[in-house]
Structure formats: C-alpha cells, structure tokens
C-alpha cells in the first residue's frame, strides 16, 4: 500500500510549478509507470502528486530541418507511431516502440523517462546520443550536463521538463540487449553520425548513469562501420556488475551493441 498523499491536477504549467514550490515533498506525476511502482513499494513517499496529465501543451511532436521537439507528456506509443519521428530519426521511433511492452508504452512518457534517469532506461541514450536539449519551464539544459548520476539529473526539485529537442542526425541507430525479465537495457547503445567526423555514442544500462564512450566515438568518426565498432575494446572499469551480467560482459556487450547499432544506422528497418 502507498503512503497517503494529496493529489492535485493543475491546469497550467505555471500552476504546476507553483504547486511543486509550495510543498517540498511534492512530485510531478506523468504516466506513473515508474513513480507509482516506487510508491507502492514505499521506495518513494511524496506528500503531494502534481498530475501533469491535463497539461495538453506538454504533449505533441514538431519538426524542422535541424531538429525535432517532443513534448514531455508524449507517450512512447505516440513517438513510435509518429510520421515526423519515423521520417527524421527512425532510430528514435524504433527505440520508443521497443520500451517495455505496449501497455507500458500507452502510459509511459518521454519526460518521465528522462527525469527519472533510470540507469537502464532507453530514452536517456537517445537524448545524449542525439545531443538533445532538455527544455524546462525555466531554461534549456544540454544533454551533456543533464544526466548526473544514478537517478540523478540537473533538474531542481520544482522544475518541470516541458519538452526535449533532438538534433537531426545524418544517420543513427539504437540497439539494446534487453534484460530477459524487465526488457530494460542490460546494455543499450545509441550511435549518431552528424556529418563526416562527428559521431556520438551513448551507452545506457552499463554504468550508474548513461555516458558517452570516447573511444568508440573516435574510432567511428574515422570510419562509420560495424567492423570498426566491434574492434574497440571497452574498459570494464566502473561498469555495473550484478546477477544478470558481470562488468566484463557488459563491457563486451557495449562494442557488440555499438556494432549492431551502426549496422542498423547504415540500413534501417522498421524493427530493432
């Protein structure tokens, strides 16, 4: 059973921020896929839930030649099905369509996933790999500054993610080795090439937070091929070790997933 809390449903982003500011133990509620689960286990006990569900301005997808912007409350299912995303960054649509299961994708949101910063979540890899910008109620935060640690971001406690802007790459791919039970990434790698010599590689699931892999980036900047990616030896230092996989195995999976992501980027299909 969850601890008691007060439920508020503001009609504007300003009111939502005000509600968060008023109560220090208040939390925004998006789809609840992570937050309600944590509350049921009594791992989280907010005094107030500020439901963002009626802030229609926070949901939706828009694009231009340089970037696409996705509202924080846009559900995974809507990102996966969006013609704009599928045309501009097919890897992002496939990533969203492969999160959890379809019931989860009908409730889970981009903003919730990014704010939660689960070390094994998929979206953070796309945000970091695509040099995304997190747009909040008060500022823009670059993805290199946003993910700070285990479930830790640059967000202030009363700050709300309004949208995320993703830079349009020349090509990109995402591959995850799913945890056999949870479908989260045991290791997930997002690769993106933005024109010659500019490659970003973001790794999720392997460490305490999503991170960029410099050696893979340097190698792929010279030659963007799967063979080059598989030849990079990734260090196991600092990587997670648990029942599902050792740090050494995760390090190995990083180059394998990177190679598969590059192969996908070179010849995209509708499925991962």
């Amino acid at each position, binding site marked *: 059973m969850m601890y008691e809390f007060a439920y508020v449903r503001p009609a504007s982003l300003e009111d939502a921020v005000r509600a968060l500011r008023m109560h220090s133990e208040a939390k925004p509620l998006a789809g609840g896929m992570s937050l309600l689960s944590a509350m049921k286990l009594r791992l989280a006990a907010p005094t107030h839930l500020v439901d963002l569900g009626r802030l229609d301005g926070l949901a939706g997808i828009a694009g231009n030649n340089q970037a696409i912007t996705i509202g924080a409350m846009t559900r995974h299912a809507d990102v996966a099905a969006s013609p704009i995303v599928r045309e501009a960054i097919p890897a992002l649509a496939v990533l969203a369509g492969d999160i959890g299961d379809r019931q989860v994708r009908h*409730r889970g949101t981009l903003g919730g996933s990014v704010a939660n910063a689960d070390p094994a979540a998929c979206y953070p890899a796309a945000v970091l790999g695509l040099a995304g910008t997190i747009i909040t109620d008060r500022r823009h935060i670059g993805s290199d500054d946003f993910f700070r640690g285990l479930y830790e971001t640059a967000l202030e406690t009363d700050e709300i993610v309004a949208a995320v802007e993703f830079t349009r790459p020349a090509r990109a791919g995402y591959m995850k080795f799913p945890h056999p039970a949870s479908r989260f990434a045991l290791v997930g790698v997002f690769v993106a090439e933005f024109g010659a010599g500019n490659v970003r590689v973001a790794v999720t699931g392997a460490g305490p937070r999503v991170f960029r892999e410099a050696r893979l980036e340097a190698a792929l900047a010279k030659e963007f091929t799967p063979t080059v990616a598989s030849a990079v030896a990734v260090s196991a230092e600092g990587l997670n070790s648990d029942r599902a996989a050792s740090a050494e195995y995760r390090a190995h999976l990083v180059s394998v997933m990177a190679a598969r992501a590059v192969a996908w980027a070179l010849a995209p299909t509708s499925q991962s």
Partner: protein
Amino acid sequence: MKTAVSIIVNDRRCETEVPTTMLLVDFLREVAGSKGTVVGCDTGQCGCCTVHVDGDAVKSCTMLTAQADGASILTIEGLASADGMHPMQRAFHEHHALQCGYCTAGIVMNAVDIVTKHHELDERTIRRLIEGNLCRCTGYSNIVDAILEAAREAKRGA
C-alpha cells in the same frame, strides 16, 4: 485524503469520491464491481489487470483512479454483447487458450486492442505485442493461435 471522479465503466457512469491512493484496478473491482479484472503481480509486469482506458490497453494496477477521471473504461465484462461472446472470447474458448484462467481477462483485453489497431498480424508480431502479459500455464501457443484466428475473423468481417 479523497478526490472526486467521474468515470465511465462499460457504458455506465460512476460519479463518486475515492481515496487519492486508490489504484484503478481496485476502483474497478471494489467500486464498479468488475471483478473480472484481477491483480497478478501489482508491480506492472504481468498484465492480468489490463483494461482499455479511452481505447488503449493499459495496466490498471499502475494507474491512479484519479488519473482516469473523465475517461471511458472497458473491462472484460463489457466485451460480450446480447448476441453472445466477443469473437476474441470465442477464439480463446475454441483454441483452449487458457488453463487456470487467471491471466485470461488481461490477455483478452490486450488482444482485442491489438487486433483493433494492427491489421497485418503474424505469429512473431503477436508474440512481441503480448510481451506485457504473463501466463504461467499455457506456454502461449494456443493464445497466439486464438489471437491469429480472431484477427483473421476481424479481417473477414471488415
């Protein structure tokens, strides 16, 4: 603490006050009386609690009743019509797609949503789309056969 909600469950409007902590699955079972929706895991994994909220299959154990305020909900009790079982229920019956039956309501609700939204279904796709439903008895084969059959029937009828 309480909150007021107005929710349509299987075409019947329910206006009442519920505790803020009340999960949708408990509202459906205890307030709306739809006991066909069950809890298998309570952690969002098993899909036994799947219902449709405004036309989308979701896990009702991981949603607050308050979040469903203003929504229209379809549960397993709302599927059959005066003419008898829903085609998906009939397909499950004919293909022996259940043993203990605990997972069945949730899988049938997800399957109905799948067949409504996907028109090209093969075995691989169906297995992927029912990843959010666990069945400890059947081994899934007959479930997949039943959904394939219902999908074919829906296509013939369309």
